[in-house]
């Protein structure tokens, strides 16, 4: 895929954000994550390996892929009992898939997401379906649409598409000859 405008993934720097905002006509929402009590509470559970990312409205923690399962277990034990969804984002220019785990709880419905990058040519990560059972189908969906495999998953099959389907539609380089209209403008 030839994409001249690189997708932005280095969200960590706030200075970049403001320059980006000047280009567009829209004003960015105020982001006060550093003083946020939820962010500091979660950081206390996760420890220093988790990096807080400050872009957009959703509080995001970037964690190393190897420790993701461990972090999820710690969060579950600390009362974050509601996994809203698991999904992935394709960044072909970075040669990475970003896995997104949206985590919440059934008490006060606070929410944040954990993200981790895995290499695009060897997309494997350990399942979290043993921690939150609901991840089982969500991970099947990610496998179905992105081709990311989940280690120790109890039942990794396609869930929405047919078993004979070729390719993984939500990857950015997926080509569908039948439906040319489903294409991102400029790609």
């Amino acid at each position, binding site marked *: 895929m030839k994409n001249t405008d690189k997708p932005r993934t280095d969200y960590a720097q706030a200075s970049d954000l403001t320059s980006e905002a000047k280009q567009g006509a829209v004003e960015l929402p105020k982001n006060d994550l550093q003083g946020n009590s939820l962010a500091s509470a979660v950081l206390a559970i996760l420890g220093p390996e988790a990096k807080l990312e400050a872009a957009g409205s959703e509080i995001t923690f970037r964690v190393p892929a190897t420790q993701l399962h461990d972090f999820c277990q710690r969060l579950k034990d600390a009362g974050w*009992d509601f996994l809203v969804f698991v999904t992935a984002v394709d960044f072909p220019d970075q040669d990475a898939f970003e896995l997104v785990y949206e985590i919440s709880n059934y008490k006060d419905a606070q929410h944040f997401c954990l993200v981790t990058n895995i290499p695009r040519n060897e997309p494997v990560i350990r399942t979290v379906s043993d921690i939150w*059972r609901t991840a089982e189908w969500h991970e099947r969906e990610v496998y179905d649409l992105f081709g990311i495999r989940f280690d120790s998953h109890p039942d990794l099959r396609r869930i929405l598409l047919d078993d004979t389907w070729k390719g993984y539609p939500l990857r950015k380089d997926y080509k569908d000859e039948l439906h040319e209209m489903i294409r991102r403008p400029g790609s």
Partner: protein
Amino acid sequence: MNNDVKSEVSQPQAPYYDEMFINMGPQHPSTHGVLRLVVKLAGETVLGVSPHMGYVHRSIEKMGETLSPMQFIHLTSRLDYLSAHMNNWAWAMLVEKALGIKPPERAEYLRVIMAELTRIASHQLWWGVFGMDLGAFTPFLYAFRDREKINDIFEKTCGSRLTMHYICPGGVFEEPDAEFESDVRSFIKYFAPVIDEYERLLSGNIIIQERTRGVGVLPADRAKAYGCTGPVLRASGVDYDLRKVQPYGVYNRFEFKTAVANEGDSWARYKVRLEEMRQSLEIIRQALDQMPKDGPVREKLPSVIKIPPGRYFARAEAARGEIAFFVVGDGKPVPWRLKIRSPNFSNLQAFPEIIRGWRVADIVTVLSTFDIVVPDIDR
């Protein structure tokens, strides 16, 4: 004739506990859409169920990567088409979060009224279809008679009866028609006693009682593990309703109760939905009283909406649970990635576990009280 065959015929063979697989669906009246259940049976007893989805998969997430936020509203109505207003609302909230704008006061109230009317219409339809699933045809006619009145209000206000796309980023599309308030008020007046009529018609029925009480019990911890939301979760005794625990819009200004039942069986799910209809009427009544009589209903938005770089998440309480949108923006007019979290997808996941050990007829009951909408699962 071979002797072996003869002896086989003379003896009663095929013990009823032989395992067999049957397909329920993809076209079956009780699956409410094109959902295929592969059921493993021993006689009448269900040994296991494996749902197969995707028959109405329209790749809405992929299409979202090609459509502007204003265009995408129209696809959100087509997820759970019975909660169209709430889906629109969740999407509108995400775009408003990304742009940092706040809808006008009057629009906030209109959103609440519309969303609660949709919740009532959705539960009405469920109630009618639930009766029909269990063999009672009359409730279906009652429910559709009353649902028509809500649809008429929607038609007058937004020109559409099912896929409204009325709630949009910035507020609502336009001022409702002049008779909107009196129409809604007369509907409340009409419908409050009708819920009691529903109860008299169906709730006390001995067949309904026998077929729902204690059937398909979903314990609270399992419901949480499966990420269930909405009436399915609240019927298991978990007091979790986004309108209460994290009020969005102006829900914190109304007094209402969350409908919760502790049993977790099909009967509890039935009770919770009937109670939710009553509470929704309460909310609409208060919203009509508090709503500013005039004022703008739509905030001005930039003509090209660019989702700024970053991650955005917004969710709302739809009729079946929590609808959530997640967007990764890259500053272009279309999102880089769009994820839809649909309530039915997670709710249905709990179904195979709790149906094990029950009879074939109970599949119909439990699936009906889960109130799934298949286009929402498949997206």
